[in-house]
């Protein structure tokens, strides 16, 4: 019979004990901004490394009243975003949106939406690599002790050597920050563009790493300062004259796409990485005369 194949899942898929454990860890994470809290990461019907840390946070905190947005690289239609959104809606029945302003809960990999987030919204980030100290101390237990003692001297030296070698603080998508002047936190995988937006924000940011089994948080109105040096200040990816080919925005984080011309050649163009923001601007431009 058809119906018997349809299993009835617990709301939010996780059992209540798993949710409680994640909730308890989240409260500690908020109370100790930037400190990594271990948690018993569960296996979910999605491969680890594909956002199970963020997913477990979302499933542990979501309520039927929430309106959910899921993005991957700023894009609501990304494969990872579609898969995660489907899993969450199938197990909770919550409403979804692509509009950042309409969402109460946003799960994301890589981007913070361009539109300023509010106090009544929560951003959940999927984290692939947790510890900024892995570059100088691959042993996680020893790195944990270093965090406890705020023993960051080796990391500062490593950063300085990196920037001198690279010319500026362009360490691709891996950028350490100091949270509330105490804990060093990795901002992977968000671009440098979004790093300043963690600082003194209105919104609560929750970070989950499924494979490394860590949860951490940046509360609202909390100082988040990139590691930088007087002779090598922090810089975002912004380039003078940059512009989105679709909506014309000049102050957004852009991604490049190759547009083939049909004759075996083509050109690279840049457009907003936040696809829903870009669509909104296009739509409102079309309405206006």
């Amino acid at each position, binding site marked *: 019979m058809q119906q018997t194949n349809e299993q009835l*899942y617990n709301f939010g898929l996780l059992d209540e004990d798993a949710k409680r454990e994640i909730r308890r860890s989240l409260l500690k994470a908020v109370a*100790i901004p930037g400190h990594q809290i271990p948690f018993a990461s569960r296996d979910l019907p999605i491969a680890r490394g594909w956002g199970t840390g963020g997913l477990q946070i979302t499933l542990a905190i979501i309520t039927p009243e929430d309106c959910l947005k899921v993005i991957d690289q700023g894009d609501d239609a990304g494969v990872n975003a579609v898969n995660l959104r489907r899993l969450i809606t199938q*197990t*909770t029945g919550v409403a979804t949106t692509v509009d950042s302003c309409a969402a109460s809960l946003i799960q994301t990999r890589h981007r913070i939406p361009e539109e300023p987030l509010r106090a009544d919204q929560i951003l959940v980030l999927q984290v692939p690599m947790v510890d900024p100290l892995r570059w100088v101390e691959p042993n996680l237990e020893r790195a944990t002790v270093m965090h*406890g003692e705020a023993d960051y001297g080796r990391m500062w030296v490593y950063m300085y050597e990196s920037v001198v070698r690279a010319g500026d603080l362009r360490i691709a998508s891996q950028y350490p920050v100091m949270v509330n002047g105490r804990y060093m936190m990795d901002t992977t995988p968000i671009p440098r563009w979004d790093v300043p937006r963690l600082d003194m924000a209105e919104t609560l940011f929750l970070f989950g790493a499924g494979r490394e089994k860590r949860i951490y948080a940046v509360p609202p109105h909390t100082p988040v300062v990139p590691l930088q040096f007087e002779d090598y200040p922090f810089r975002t990816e912004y380039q003078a004259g940059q512009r989105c080919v679709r909506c014309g925005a000049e102050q957004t984080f852009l991604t490049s796409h190759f547009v083939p011309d049909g004759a075996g050649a083509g050109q690279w163009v840049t457009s907003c990485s936040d696809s829903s923001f870009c669509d909104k601007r296009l739509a409102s431009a079309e309405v206006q005369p």
Partner: protein
Amino acid sequence: MIAAPPTTQAYFNSRTFRILLDSLARPGTLGRLPPPPQGYDLPLLPAMQLPNHYAVAALLSLLDQGTSMAHAAGGLWLSAEHPLTRWFTLRSNAQVETPAYADYVLLHDPASAACLGDLKRGSLTFPEQSCTAFLCVAQLDEHGATWRLAGPGIAGSRTVGIPGLPANVLSVIMATRSDFPLGVDIFCIDVTGACLGLPRTTRIEEVCS
């Protein structure tokens, strides 16, 4: 797959958690805890000893066999044989623990805030292995000015009114958080279900009147 609607208890726990999370993330902005679901048949106790049922339900929403708890009234820790202790353990499977090792404590009245000094504050390596306290108070007033709060979650500073606290409460609380990242996180909950989160990062001063 079909999503089952959450059970009454699961739904209550999820809504309660969001209030606790938001209160802790925004100290001084009062959360409104939902009324406990039906079936919270608290044990028969003398009227003077009836606990704040919002605080009881909020604490219970976080407890299970992976946690331990203790509770105090009138400034004294209550025994494992106390009817309310048994009530908690029966419903949550949490372990009853000596206060110095308890993960969660319920302080039934402002007088028991003196007990905050007994609680574990974690270690440098594991500051999260600290106690979280639920402190029952008579009234919280977002527009009042007993304390001035500052720190993460607060734009600048903000005040909150907590009338009727014993004089030494603030010094006891601040002594538990003199050595960040160690500390005890506190939820103050009043008889109407208003909830004030005081994470260990919150600096508190008496407002001079």
